[in-house]
């Protein structure tokens, strides 16, 4: 069995009175891509945002259960969510670069960590842009606005920005859903190349994307985890009828 990076134990999430996630238990293996799939509104994004405590910002949200990261429950009282988010990075559905230069976008995370040395920042920015497969396209215009990039380039910039602070886990919320097929292919390729260093959790409503890009797949339906296993097993021999029905397109 592989090393487990993150353990979700009996997670319940409520928005006000409404329970959005029911008793989710899931082990995220290290240095793999774990895809979370399911129809719209099944709680995929909520589950993802529970992992770096981004749900904290919604009013009236209540979380029960535990998420064990590095031996500690990230919902324990003495845990500072800011530290968690620094160690668990996130890439969003819509590319959301800051209205700053390409360079400053990637340097942002370093600057807020208190990096001062210009040389060290520059090296880390270059390294991150290279890892995000964007360097060759932007190396001559690092100081032009991030908004001048195409959508696909912007998303890779956001990935570079996220990995610049060297998180241990990278959460991706449908990172390719707003991109065209060619840009999508590049992002998926990039995701595969990142698992050497990072553990990735990938939310997607695109089953082909999960099949192409992930090692493990979790299928969520109406806030419950229906099935979890190696991706090829889920896609070829699903154990549950709901999984099979979803994968064969009987509902979506």
């Amino acid at each position, binding site marked *: 069995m592989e090393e487990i990076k993150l353990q979700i134990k009996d997670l319940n999430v409520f928005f006000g009175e409404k329970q959005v996630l029911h008793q989710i238990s899931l082990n995220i293996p290290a240095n793999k891509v774990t895809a979370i799939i399911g129809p719209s509104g099944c709680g995929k994004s909520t589950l993802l945002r529970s992992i770096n405590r*981004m749900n904290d910002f919604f009013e009236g949200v209540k979380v029960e259960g535990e998420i064990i990261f590095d031996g500690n429950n990230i919902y324990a009282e003495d845990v500072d969510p800011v530290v968690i988010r620094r160690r668990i990075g996130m890439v969003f559905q819509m590319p959301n670069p800051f209205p700053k230069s390409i360079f400053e976008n990637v340097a942002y995370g370093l600057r807020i960590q208190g990096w001062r040395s210009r040389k060290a920042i520059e090296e880390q920015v270059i390294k991150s842009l290279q890892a995000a497969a964007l360097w060759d396209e932007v190396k001559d215009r690092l100081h032009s606005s991030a908004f001048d990039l195409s959508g696909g380039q912007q998303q890779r910039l956001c990935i570079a920005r996220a990995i610049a602070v060297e998180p241990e886990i990278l959460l991706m919320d449908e990172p390719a859903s707003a991109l065209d097929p060619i840009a999508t292919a590049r992002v998926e390729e990039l995701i595969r190349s990142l698992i050497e260093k990072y553990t990735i959790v990938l939310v997607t409503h695109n089953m082909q994307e999960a099949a192409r890009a992930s090692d493990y797949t979790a299928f969520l339906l109406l806030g419950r985890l229906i099935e979890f296993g190696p991706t090829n097993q889920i896609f070829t021999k699903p154990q549950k009828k709901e999984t099979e029905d979803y994968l064969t397109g009987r509902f979506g």
Partner: protein
Amino acid sequence: MKEGILKRRYLVQNIWFTIFWLSMILIAVILGLILYFILSRGIKVINWEFLTSVPRRGMTEGGIFPAIVGTFYLVLGSIVVSLPLGIFSAIYLIEYASPNRPVVKALRTAIHCLAGVPSVVFGLFGLAVFVKIFGFGVSILSGSLTLGIMSLPVVITSVEEALKAVPLSFREASLALGANKWTTIWRVVLPSSLPGILTGLILSVGRAAGETAPIMFTAAVFYARRLPQSIFDPAMALPYHIYGLMTEGTRPDKQVPLAYGTAVVLILLVIAVDFIAIYLRGKSRRTRKW
């Protein structure tokens, strides 16, 4: 039958369109008349001397230089008062306060009420508090504080709008990188909203520059022999100068044209300030792509 209904609908529509159009024209005409009358009566007295010299011979001759300087100081002072307070409270309301809490709702209502208080009431308040209780006397300081407080609701509201225009996704991106709330505000939200904040600020400046009542009891004098030397000196001011020329003079034949000339200067100043605001807003619309 059906065609009749259709025709009638078009008729109704056309009548309403005409009413809307006429209202627009009426407003443009009123604006044009204001400008025409003020300019045609005032432009004669405006020359370099009028702008750069002090009033002479019981304010029947000379210029308005001290009033221009005084208005400049008062506006600057009111910015110093209203800008930090306005920005800080707008940040609190938008970024920190949860909108459903009763105390926050009460605060918002209070700000709206403040916006509705007549400006002469602010003047009386300034007289009672800054001039008398704090003992600042009739001075630029008292006037700036009074004008600043009067401008606060406008500043707060416009800063709030500017902050709200910053997309949530910028904040999320920053927070997800391990920034805390303040870092996010300082490094992402405020820089992105700066043009909007400036625009609001400038518009409120234009308003403060033209107010008479708040400075009437707190800062302004009809005639000062010298320019103010410190913030504890009273000052002349353009709107109050107009008021003085029209009400206190003994030689209306000479003073009324001077009042119109002063009004022209004031109008042109306010219009210039508004154009700066419009330029800034346009510029930020061109550069921002979210």
